């Protein structure tokens, strides 16, 4: 029998939904003050942002395009955080995935799309997973903190991609091009466009399906149960017979693979080439995306949609109101900090403490 009343469950569910929303509004408010401070009008700025992100079919398509890598990488980050593994190397894994997909995309072979495209996607996933494998191995089996390792691999991954597309010496680089880039990928590896005339591609559908799939995996499978168990209490999980090292290793591979898919989708769906420095920090944004979603795969769909809209609207905001695009980094960071600080948490905590004190005693004597 549940120890929690219906009111309790309702309050908790309400908090989980409303809390991040309040945090978001506060972040927008504080950033609005910053915009005023530099002499611009926040209403105009945010207005331009809304028009640029949801104001038209084109704008919505752009939001969907920006959302796709955030959703994929956000899923990876959320999964690792859920297991208590701090994979903050999504940026590097994303570049690795993009390299993998590009290699398949530019291969001088002629394959039907039904083989070629899935192959590029799978290789992108595997490349991302491999990029996470070294930090994952040392975290799982050697007890080295994954935090600094995954961060360092970000820088290495970005440089590796730059080398690959170097126009003079890179194995994938287009010789003589003005900018470091690979050759165009084959038509048979391009993700289909969903709305003609826009850039919205099928990567978004893949990402949403994966989110739903991962929600089911985390919630209803043994793998998901073990993952949550290790995340909640690794010692208890080990006592219960979970091979925590192996679980962590698998989670790192999966997490890196998903970030790799984010990079692959950018190449296969949007850019059709690998460019140097093509990611504006999607792998770092993914941390905020995962946190805002409380590491819930379905929640990641919403939070990546929101941050995707921010990115889509930011360009228009810069053109119309002259506001630096980096204001969206401030909004994201403040949202995370406000979520973590738990705005209104004091009110809720005191209320819950009042409600729960007798129940806790009950727990002590129950066993």
């Amino acid at each position, binding site marked *: 029998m549940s120890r929690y009343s219906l009111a309790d469950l309702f309050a908790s569910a309400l908090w989980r939904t409303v809390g991040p929303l309040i945090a978001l509004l506060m972040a927008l408010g504080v950033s609005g003050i910053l915009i005023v401070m530099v002499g611009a009008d926040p209403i105009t700025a945010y207005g331009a942002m809304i028009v640029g992100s949801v104001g038209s079919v084109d704008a919505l398509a752009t939001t969907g395009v920006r959302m796709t890598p955030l959703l994929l990488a956000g899923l990876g980050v959320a999964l690792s955080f859920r297991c208590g593994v701090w994979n903050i190397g999504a940026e590097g894994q994303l570049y690795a995935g993009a390299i993998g997909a590009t290699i398949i995309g530019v291969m001088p072979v002629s394959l039907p799309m039904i083989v070629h495209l899935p192959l590029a996607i799978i290789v992108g996933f595997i490349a991302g997973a491999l990029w996470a494998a*070294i930090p994952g191995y*040392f975290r799982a089996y050697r007890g080295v903190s994954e935090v600094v390792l995954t*961060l360092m691999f*970000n820088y290495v991954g970005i440089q590796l991609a730059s080398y690959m597309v170097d126009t003079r010496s890179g194995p994938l680089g287009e010789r003589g091009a003005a900018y470091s880039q690979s050759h165009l990928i084959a038509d048979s590896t391009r993700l289909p466009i969903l709305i003609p005339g826009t850039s919205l591609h099928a990567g978004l559908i893949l990402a949403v399906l994966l989110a739903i799939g991962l929600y089911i995996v985390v919630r209803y499978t043994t793998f998901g149960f073990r993952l949550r168990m290790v995340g909640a209490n690794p010692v208890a999980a080990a006592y219960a017979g979970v091979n925590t090292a192996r679980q962590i290793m698998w989670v790192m591979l999966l997490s890196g693979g998903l970030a790799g898919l984010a990079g692959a989708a950018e190449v296969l769906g949007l850019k059709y080439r690998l460019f140097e420095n093509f990611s504006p920090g999607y792998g770092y944004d993914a941390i*905020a995306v995962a946190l805002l979603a409380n590491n819930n795969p379905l929640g990641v769909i919403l939070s990546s949609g929101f941050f995707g809209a921010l990115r889509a609207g930011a360009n228009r905001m810069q053109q119309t109101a002259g506001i630096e695009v980096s204001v969206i980094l401030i909004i994201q960071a403040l949202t995370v900090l406000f979520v*973590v600080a738990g705005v209104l948490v004091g009110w809720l905590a005191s209320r819950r403490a009042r409600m729960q004190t007798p129940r806790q005693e009950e727990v002590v004597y129950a066993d």
Partner: protein
Amino acid sequence: MPIDTAFVTDWGTASIRLATPLALTAMGGVYSERSGVFNIGMEGMMLSGAFVAITTSYFTGSVVAAALAAMAAGTLLSLVHAYLAISRLANQIIVGAAINLLALGLTNFLYRAIFGATGRERVAGFPQVKLPVLGDIPVIGPILFDHSIAVYIAYILPFVAWYVLFRTTWGLNVRAVGEYPQAADAAGVSVKRVRYLSVMLSGAMAGLGGAALSLGAVRYFTQGMTAGRGFIVLGALVFGKWNPILVALACLFFGAADALQLRAQTFGFAIPHQFLVMLPYLLTIAALVGFVGRTVAPQSLGVPYKSEAD
């Protein structure tokens, strides 16, 4: 082959110069981690320090004011970290990552607002001081004793930091709180107070480290100019076993690697320059992975502590 003294002098000088921002930041980082608080936000605190130092120097012309303002900026960000990580028991990695994102966004945003889209303002930097007599020794003189004042601060601080950490009551408290907070708490040490002060020290030093980066050599600010140096410091802490003097040497090692890769790019080696740029990061990875089991982190590093008294 005769040793090219001009090259050695140049490389050595640059190594010291590039190690200084790392070492200054690391001296605060040692205290934060020794007290049990993991601070990946040092990257953002450094970046803020670099930006605030340039801006303050631009408007006031005073490098002292610039250094103090940079330290204040780092401290301010570290207070956010301390409040959330210590008082709210929040996850230290998430808070640190958010602080880095915030610092990147804020410095970009404010730089554009103050200096415009294209401006790369050169400002007054830290004064260059050539020590008498010592500075005239061939090779060693220019490498060690002809630098900005930030470098000389970085020479002295590791010894001070070592002494305070291992020979004073305050240092004992820091270590106790990071190893076994329950015992420290029971002995009457305020875990919260010690951790707050340690994290604030780490913020101030990261701010100063950032100032040493922007005012020490280049004298301008570029977006995201710290380029992971705050993270490399985290590696140096592990490599140097959280001992200030060893950590400073680890920073010198990474500074030397950075200086070498910059020089190697001009040699026209067969190695593509992207691999040279990777060098400091790869060495950090190698240091972390190679020191498996040979180094023991403070036992309560990264674990929030909730006092019974709260």
